[in-house]
């Protein structure tokens, strides 16, 4: 399967990856090769087969709706790129 440059640009944008034109071209060639490999799947007849999302067919455990985590804000913010007054700082979103 051959992906177009536009396909790759769209995927990069969705994945929040900034890529230069040469990077897009390299990715296009490599992803096309990988999708050739993946294309083998399409010929398989899977009518009536339930999708298997997980190795163990278990239902999700439930727990009591109570607070179990302790406050570790200082420990977590000690490794953050930029914090101030207990808040994570990012560039201005709303003018």
């Amino acid at each position, binding site marked *: 399967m051959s992906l177009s440059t536009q*396909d*790759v640009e769209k*995927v*990069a944008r*969705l*994945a*929040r*990856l*900034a*890529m230069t034109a040469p990077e897009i071209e390299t*990715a296009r060639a*490599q*992803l096309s*090769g*990988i999708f*050739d*490999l*993946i*294309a*083998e*799947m*399409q010929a*398989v007849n*899977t009518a009536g*087969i*339930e*999708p*298997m*999302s*997980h*190795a*163990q067919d*278990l239902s*999700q*455990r439930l*727990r009591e709706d109570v607070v179990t985590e302790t406050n*570790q804000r200082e*420990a*977590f913010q*000690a*490794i*953050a*790129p*930029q914090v101030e007054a207990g808040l*994570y700082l*990012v*560039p*201005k*979103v709303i003018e």
Partner: protein
Amino acid sequence: MFESSLKQLGDALRAKKISSVELTQLYLDRIAAHNPALNAYITLNPEMSLAQARAADARLAAGSADALTGIPVAQKDIFCAKGWLTTCGSKMLHNFVSPYDAHVISQFNNAGAINLGKTNMDEFAMGSSNETSYYGAVKNPWDKARVPGGSSGGTASAVAARLCAAATGTDTGGSIRQPAALCGISGLKPTYGVCSRYGMIAFASSLDQAGPMGRSAEDLALLLNTMAGFDERDSTSLQRDKEDYARDLNKPLNGLRIGLPKEFFAEGLGSDVARAVEAAIAEYKKLGATVVDISLPNTRLSIPVYYVLAPAEASSNLSRFDGVRYGYRAPDYSDLADMYEQSRSQGFGAEVKRRIMIGTYVLSHGYYDAYYIQAQKIRRLIAQDFVEAYKHCDVIMGPTSPSTAFKLGEKGDDPVQMYLSDIYTIAVNLAGLPGMSIPCGFGDNDMPVGLQIIGNYFDEARMLNVAHQYQLATDWHNRAPQL
């Protein structure tokens, strides 16, 4: 001392023949001498390791030691360990000193084991050669021009070179078994859900599983006894009674039925690997086992299915790395969206970006049914192949990898060639079964060959028995590379 089993080390520590501080220092000295040539460790922290060793010595003196108390164990750098730099092989986490312990790490800490250091790995565990690590490729101690396998390549190299007594790995598509095979050591990926994923940096959550890597099946049993266990912080951790994985080690193998899948011995398997694996099967017949021909007809499809499902889960898991709360943030950016894009583009390496893009594509509008759902359906067919096969046999055996360790850079530019080398290991993850690799000889260029043993669900104790009996009859697992 470096050739002692974990049991012998434990006995020596409890008999006060050596202290944990002395043993830890011996390993740290050996690492200092040999790690520069192998690059098996990303982070060493002798101060923290020796502090743990002093605490272990106090526990040994008080007579409250467990099987692993005082023994130096290396940890794959995918496991968060409090106070330790935890990079997952990525620039994205180059400055991430974990504020908490993974469940597996706390299990080792509770046992009194020493964290000897964090081992190198493919970036976010995505790779089969350990060449995608931001911290440089790991060398195979049997031939430093060759790869150790991946993604747990640092662990495999360190165990083979005796730069730790044992270590941990994780296996999403073969990342414990393939490097174990390529470095001539033993490694076990348990049934999905046996070891908690809490604090293990996520790659593909429905496939990721932690497991032990060491020099013998007997060592692996002791390690798994420590690593396994229910943990409510992992929603897929299994609630099961505690078991002793060493309980069946000494059972004879009379009557064991070994299934040999014809698809594992077909085109693509190196003749040197085939010879060593066939010799191992012959040894098992001498030990009383019988052989049954079986078929896993969807083996070939496991690669395309895996390379849809694992990247899909990865693209979702890795969306958390955005430069806001921890990890790498780009120095220059124009606005919030640009900060995300620049941080991710600069923080992730090429293979990780490739897989994020595959995953993003297959999950995007219009392609979801054709790729993601179709892959999940074939996943069930692959799992059913094993259910059918286990009606006729007790364990399945075959090669772990189609070839022995290849040269560094040999498969560098072609991701598809690298992906195809996972052909014998991936189906086991998709089905959620336990699998292991043990050394069974040497191929061309005198590089180690691994025998893969695949068990039925929760059959780890039997697999360890099967591996241990082979290791009592052979000495491949005792061979060590000249450093």
